[in-house]
């Protein structure tokens, strides 16, 4: 095992790219809420960036990637990064320093937790969100990450393919967002269908653009080498994001007008869907993957907003849960041996799709039930929700004592 400087350089750059995605989520979500809650929404992602960074080096990495315990969880030998050094790991990514691999994985944990916040904006108590996030990282993320990516993880042994996190990141976050919303309840005025106008759509577009940019690190970086496989993931990533953005734009146009919020959302959905497939499928397969992802997500979102029953406010489930689920299934369909070694349906391996679906079912059931329990635990102990007055005033003032846009006096 010797360090390859090209691989190391690319992984370090990719790590920085994925880091930028969490502030991008902050902008993407922050622009969509009402003006009185924009800072609180941004703060959720930013605080999670700091919080999970610390938890990850203290114990998160060890629980996720440490020596396998029954396929379920990693051991504690890497607590506080003991034994995680400048030399490559003997298990993961043999051409880069172990520290670089650890930090790359940290960024995935961070963004997964941040993604969930889109469901609970404008009403969750900030302190409770941080406590929930700590519990969720420990008891949901670290386990699911170990099952799929940890050496000896049981879903990996079953043969579930997930190149860059369609299940660990997107399904996991989407389903957990839904469960957390069900415990938290809807925003005041949601059931009465009061309009909740986004405060800054250009900010949403900036967030979406930065996510697209960072996603090259997310997917192409997941090759863990700087070569052909990374290039394949790079091309599939861009192509799927583009296909889904165009599809969403056209669907909006058919219904009324091509909306800017729509095209920004479509890109993210396509990028989520290609994530598990990016290193397994031919670049052209990313077009149907993106197109179908956008259609599925669009109609799930349409149905949710039409029904008006569940205030999963920024549609984390419809974007990431649906996009990720389709992406994992699509990986089973379109994986071709020539790209990443694994064979899917188009290569005659009819068994891969059922394996993918089994993996999805396990993760959905696990993430939903544990998240629901953790949310209930936080709710009955310290309370998940702000008071009615605090919600009316807005979380920027009530939780953080700040307002985003200054008043008349300057």
């Amino acid at each position: 095992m010797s360090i390859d400087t090209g691989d190391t350089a690319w992984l370090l750059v990719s790590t920085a790219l994925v880091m930028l995605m969490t502030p991008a989520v902050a902008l993407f979500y922050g622009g969509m809420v009402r003006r009185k809650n924009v800072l609180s929404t941004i703060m959720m992602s930013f605080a999670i960036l700091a919080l999970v960074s610390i938890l990850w080096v203290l114990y998160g990495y060890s629980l996720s990637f440490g020596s396998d315990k029954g396929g379920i969880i990693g051991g504690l030998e890497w607590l506080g990064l003991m034994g995680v050094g400048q030399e490559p790991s003997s298990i993961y990514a043999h051409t880069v320093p172990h520290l670089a691999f650890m930090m790359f994985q940290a960024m995935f944990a961070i963004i997964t937790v941040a993604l969930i916040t889109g469901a609970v904006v404008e009403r969750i108590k900030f302190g409770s969100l941080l406590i929930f996030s700590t519990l969720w990282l420990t008891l949901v993320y670290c386990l699911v990450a170990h099952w799929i990516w940890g050496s000896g993880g049981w879903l990996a042994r079953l043969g579930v393919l997930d190149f860059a996190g369609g299940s660990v990141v997107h399904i996991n976050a989407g389903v957990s967002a839904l469960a957390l919303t069900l415990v938290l309840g809807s925003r005041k005025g949601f059931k009465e269908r009061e309009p909740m106008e986004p405060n800054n759509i250009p900010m949403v577009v900036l967030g979406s653009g930065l996510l697209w940019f960072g996603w090259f690190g997310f997917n192409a970086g997941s090759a863990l080498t700087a070569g052909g496989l990374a290039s394949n993931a790079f091309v599939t990533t861009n192509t799927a994001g583009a296909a889904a953005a165009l599809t969403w734009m056209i669907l909006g146009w058919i219904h009324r007008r091509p909306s800017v919020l729509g095209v920004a959302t479509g890109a993210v959905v396509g990028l989520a869907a290609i994530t598990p497939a990016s290193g397994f499928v031919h670049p052209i397969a990313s077009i149907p993957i993106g197109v179908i992802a956008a259609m599925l997500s669009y109609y799930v979102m349409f149905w949710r907003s039409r029904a008006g029953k569940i205030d999963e406010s920024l549609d984390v489930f419809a974007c990431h849960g649906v996009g990720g689920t389709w992406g994992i299934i699509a990986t089973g369909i379109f994986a071709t041996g020539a790209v990443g070694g694994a064979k899917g349906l188009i290569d005659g391996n009819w068994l891969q799709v059922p394996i993918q679906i089994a993996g999805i079912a396990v993760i959905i059931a696990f993430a939903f039930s544990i998240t629901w329990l953790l949310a209930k635990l936080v709710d009955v102990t310290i309370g998940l929700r702000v008071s009615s007055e605090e919600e009316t005033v807005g979380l920027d003032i009530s939780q953080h004592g700040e307002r985003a846009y200054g008043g008349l006096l300057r």
Partner: protein
Amino acid sequence: MKKIEAIIREEKLDAVRIALESQSYFGMTVSEVIGRGRQKGLTLQWRVGEYCVNFLPKIKIEVVVLDEDVPKVLNAISTNARTGEERGDGKIFIIPVEGAVRVRTGEMDENAI
């Protein structure tokens, strides 16, 4: 003296400003406001579908005029703010003004406007 408060469509601001200038009224105060009349709300695009906000953006122009100029100013504003659409062109209110002071010189009332 009367204060003319005109609530008009955003896109009619320039036409009304030019009409007021042609009546030699160069001073005015303009605000972006929201409100509604018979037009009710505004329908906007969401990521999927659409939603309706309860108030529309409008422009409010305030200009203080001499009593004898009121009819021609009202005429200038209303003819230039009209679109011919069924609703949404706005309203004009006429309010009596007690007095006025030009801050720079201390000139009073009709000399101050």
